[in-house]
């Protein structure tokens, strides 16, 4: 068996393990443990899908949670109990009052809505670079939040939309997580992924070599937004209540930290970052009692600055978990170069 084969087997075993744990959790873990498992799966989805844009293409979007919000509202509207609709949404048209979609369809619809928003907003946004793009996408987040506050007939405003059927189980979340990881891994190892890497390393050179920048950037952006939208749908049907304040800058920051600390461009890093940085503060809170939310955010910020200074490529750089790599130190994950990419210029302090 070749080493690449061995890795493939390893990945499928891990995926099967994740699903098995989700099933086991549903069979009889206590509520708190189930909650931890479900939320960590959601963070995995958010971070891995963000990695498709921020890590693979190297454009730094901060609007991910905005797409999540779009998906959350759209899917919540689609499954909202028919009996409660006339009272909750008195001004919405007739077809809406009688149209209830099954949960999986609603999730896909939420993802599709987020993808559509991404396609529209990507047109001006993706022409930007670096800091401009970051701030432009942050503006998108504010726009979505403000719309959610103001479009009262549809979103119920800042008090939030309650009474969403709580259909999300650990299995749903982890099944989607496995799909996201699979899609991201396929993108990373495909020709499309190589093109994205070329854009990241030097977009001018890539364009000169005939890479259609807008098309590829847009594809990655739309795929990423789709999964953020699905994550939003899962979230809405997990908590049962959504309000504009949930989809905040705080959540954005948290997801960004997970991504960066894990290692931009590394899917393994995203998963490890999401699990580690969700579960560790949670463990602290558990040990110290309530009221440390601010403290964990503060610590995250400090840790992030330290990582940026002392380990600028995150814990894993662009590398992936790989048995092949463990043996000869240069597996498939290192193909684009773990440390020598243009986006991560060599840091003298990090020799």
């Amino acid at each position: 068996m070749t080493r690449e084969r061995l890795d493939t087997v390893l990945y499928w075993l891990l995926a099967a393990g994740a699903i098995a744990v989700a099933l086991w959790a549903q069979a009889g873990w206590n509520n708190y443990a189930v909650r931890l498992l479900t939320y960590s799966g959601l963070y995995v989805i958010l971070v891995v899908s963000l990695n498709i844009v921020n890590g693979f293409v190297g454009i730094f979007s901060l609007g991910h949670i905005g797409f999540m919000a779009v998906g959350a509202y759209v899917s919540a509207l689609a499954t909202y109990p028919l009996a409660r609709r006339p009272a909750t949404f008195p001004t919405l048209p007739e077809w809406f009052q009688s149209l209830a979609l099954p949960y999986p369809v609603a999730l896909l619809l939420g993802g599709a809505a987020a993808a559509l928003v991404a396609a529209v907003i990507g047109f001006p946004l993706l022409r930007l670079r670096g800091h401009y793009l970051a701030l432009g996408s942050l503006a998108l987040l504010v726009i979505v939040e403000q719309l959610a506050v103001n479009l009262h007939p549809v979103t119920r405003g800042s008090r939030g939309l309650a009474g969403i059927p709580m259909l999300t189980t650990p299995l749903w979340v982890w099944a989607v997580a496995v799909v996201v990881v699979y899609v991201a891994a396929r993108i990373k190892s495909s020709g499309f992924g190589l093109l994205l890497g070329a854009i990241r390393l030097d977009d001018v050179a890539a364009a000169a070599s005939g890479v259609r920048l807008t098309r590829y950037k847009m594809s990655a952006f739309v795929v990423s937004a789709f999964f953020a939208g699905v994550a939003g749908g899962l979230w809405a049907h997990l908590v049962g209540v959504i309000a504009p304040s949930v989809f905040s800058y705080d959540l954005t920051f948290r997801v960004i930290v997970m991504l960066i600390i894990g290692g931009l461009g590394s899917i393994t890093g995203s998963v490890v970052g999401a699990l580690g940085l969700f579960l560790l503060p949670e463990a602290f809170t558990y040990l110290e009692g309530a009221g440390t939310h601010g403290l964990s955010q503060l610590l995250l910020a400090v840790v992030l600055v330290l990582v940026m200074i002392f380990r600028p490529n995150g814990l894993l750089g662009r590398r992936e978990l790989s048995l092949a790599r463990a043996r000869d130190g240069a597996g498939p994950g290192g193909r684009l170069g773990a440390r020598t990419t243009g986006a991560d210029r060599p840091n003298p302090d990090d020799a």
Partner: protein
Amino acid sequence: MNGTYLLQQLVNGLAIGSLYALLAVGLSMVYGILRLINFAHGELMMVAAMASATFLAGLRVWPPLLLVGGMLLGGVLGVVVERVAYSRLRQASEVNLLVTSLAVSTFLATGALMLWSGQPRRFERVEVLSRLYEVGGVFVRGADIAILAMAVVSMALLTWLTSRTRLGVAMRAVAEDLRVAYLMGIDPSRPILLAFFLGSMLAGAAGVLWGWKFGQVAPTMGFVPMLKAFVAAVIGGIGSIPGAFLGGIVLGLAEVFFVGLLPATYSGYRDVFVFALLFLMLLVRPTGILGVSLARKA
């Protein structure tokens, strides 16, 4: 809708616009040298405002002294941030710098929230500044005149500094290419520190002036104004100090006229409008009103 109403809206637009301008000029100052959009800029304003409200205003300091105190606090804090975090990332990629400034911003905002709680705090007002002056049927608040004056003066001084003085030339050289500037015998740390000090000082000034204008300040006040200052800087042409000022004024006017001329049901969409304007601007004229070129900076 008559002439006086329009004139009043114009004055209101100038008032809010000059606050954006003040922030945008400071933001541009830092951007001009490090090519870094300092996400923490709004939080520096917040810290200066909160600290003035808690520690200084209680002492009933002479108002100009309070303003100087807020400015110094903002400036020093900016320099500390630069030394502790950004200076260690000189060779790092743009993304890493950006992430670091996000972290600093979150650190300041969360720290302030834990220290002062989310409740807005009363800011000791000054009689001369909180009074409304009437000129031909149009009302102007004293604080607004002060903010406008502050913005104009700082814009003029900083433009002069960066274009006419030796230190300004050093600043621009460092901004152009850090390594080559080094080779030409420029020690980059001095111009960078100065740029941070001056830019952050303006954030501090904005904090105190904000307090006088609105009469209350809160730990959450920094985020949205920072974004709007960025929009202003983009509208004016980022990197250009006069552009940042102009962009702030234009943004303030656009925002006030949006709220003032449309039915009241739309006033909640104020921020949506501002950021939609950003996207429009980026589509139509990405270099801004006074910007030269978005050409790739190596």
